[in-house]
């Protein structure tokens, strides 16, 4: 299914470009001497290095992961969500790419991105999708990957150099998404950071980003199919753990009550939280009570 974009949105065959005119300075077109025109743009974004305060990860503006998770999950469109992600984490660009698997893995995908529109048009004009290893590998990989792990065929080198000329960051990280219906998507983060600071950024956020990739995927499902996605059913063990949480027990106490290990209880609670689209257990318990899943 091809989704027609609203005017400001960009939707096109498998691209890694996007519509944020003016967000970054776009170097002049660098068709021939693009090597000389390539200047790494100085990012206007700063990295939000996080710190632990009272057990919560808090960024420099005092936001916790719970804040950004909640904010993103309430946004109506993928376009809003990827933009909120970008500004929260101070990365150069973000892209959500749903590979619709009906006929072919690259058959009329649904794409939203924050890349500059000049890059998007360039990408389409040049049909870069045929060369782009992020898409070629990313739509069939399943573990998250850094773009430095990609196989770079010689013919794809100009694509990356051209991307740099259009103001894209030097580094990238992509998270494959697979849901229970075996729909596959790819959420990609592009950054101006390199080396150790880039690795540090990924290391400190990889787990949160994987979770946010699924939040954005759910928004895409809602936007595409107009349906509020069904919550995956909670198992009896998950319901038990959640009921005891609602009664004020922490995971160690629940482990003793149910005769399980701490880690197993944490696993059930993690899964419960994910299935209910909640960022923390208080939100999950109140949602479960509202949905009459538990009666503590």
């Amino acid at each position, binding site marked *: 299914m091809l989704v027609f974009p609203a005017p400001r949105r960009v939707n096109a065959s498998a691209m890694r470009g996007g519509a944020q005119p003016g967000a970054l300075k776009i170097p002049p077109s660098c068709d021939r001497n693009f*090597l*000389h*025109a*390539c*200047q*790494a743009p100085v990012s206007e974004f700063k990295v939000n290095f996080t710190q632990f305060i009272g057990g919560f990860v808090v960024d420099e503006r005092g936001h916790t992961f719970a804040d950004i998770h909640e904010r993103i999950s309430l946004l109506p469109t993928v376009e809003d969500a990827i933009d909120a992600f970008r500004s929260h984490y101070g990365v150069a660009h973000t892209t959500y790419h749903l590979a619709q698997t009906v006929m072919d893995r690259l058959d009329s995908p649904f794409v939203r991105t924050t890349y500059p529109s000049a890059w998007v048009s360039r990408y389409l004009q040049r049909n870069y999708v045929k060369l782009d*290893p992020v898409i*070629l*590998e990313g739509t*069939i*990989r*399943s*573990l*998250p990957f850094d*773009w*430095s*792990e*990609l*196989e*770079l065929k*010689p013919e*794809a*080198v*100009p694509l*990356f*150099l051209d991307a*740099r*000329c259009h103001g894209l960051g*030097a*580094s990238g990280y992509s998270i494959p*998404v*697979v*849901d*229970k219906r*075996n729909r596959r998507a790819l959420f990609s983060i592009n950054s101006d950071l*390199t*080396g150790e600071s*880039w690795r540090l950024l990924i290391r400190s956020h*990889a*787990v949160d980003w*994987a*979770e946010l*990739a*699924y939040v954005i995927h759910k928004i895409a499902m809602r936007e595409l199919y107009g349906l509020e996605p069904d919550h995956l*059913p*909670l*198992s009896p*063990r*998950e319901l038990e753990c959640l009921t005891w949480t609602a009664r004020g027990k922490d995971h160690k106490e629940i482990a003793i009550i149910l005769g*399980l*290990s701490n*880690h*197993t209880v944490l*696993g*059930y609670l*993690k*899964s419960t*939280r*994910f*299935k209910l689209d909640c960022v923390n257990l208080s939100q999950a318990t109140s949602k479960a009570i509202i949905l009459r899943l538990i009666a503590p």
Partner: protein
Amino acid sequence: MFTTIEAHHLTRVPDLLDQMFRLRKKVFADQLGWDVDVRGDHERDAYDDFRPTYLVWCDPSLRKLYGALRLMPTTGPTLLYDRFRSTFPGSVNLVSPAIWEGTRMCVDTDALAIDHPELEPSRAFGMLLLALCECALEHGIGTMISNYEPQMKRVYRRAGLQVDELGRADGYGRYPVCCGAFEVNHSVHAAMQESLSVDLPVYRKMMPNQTYMPLVEGARATTREVAVYA
């Protein structure tokens, strides 16, 4: 070496995969007598058709296989969720991007006896578990769930791994099949390294021959330089 093979690598290492499917037939169908899909000399099921990631133990030339397992995120279709849901619905229903499923874990004791005669089978299995732990840590996975026969619990313990049994079911093979979960974090990793007396990382990501390196100095980089970087 221990590494992961993802779908885009599959065509490049056909020998390795062929050996893996043969080994799985030998172990799960012939030795353990599990009710699994056998296609010719291969044990291969619908989940392999979904193009999962395989963690493999092989020689550095990627030609000879010593062991393997299959990795799938619990957010997608998974074997344990689909097959064990009816048997013990209470437990095998975990879904999270940080929880992955590892199935069809096996080592080729014959191949190891030739190339690594000093390695006893339970230690070999432990090494594969250590590689699994490192692979999970590397990719932000905090919990692994897996299925195994009850006697394997001792092998897990000897590798320094605490596995919580979530449930067990009869009727899949001669013995009951358990479904268990184990935690992955740095202290689990340290405990495993100590139990196995290993002090260097064993797992490494499959890196391509020519990689996309960050083109920080894009102005200077030429096509040739980029190729040389790798």
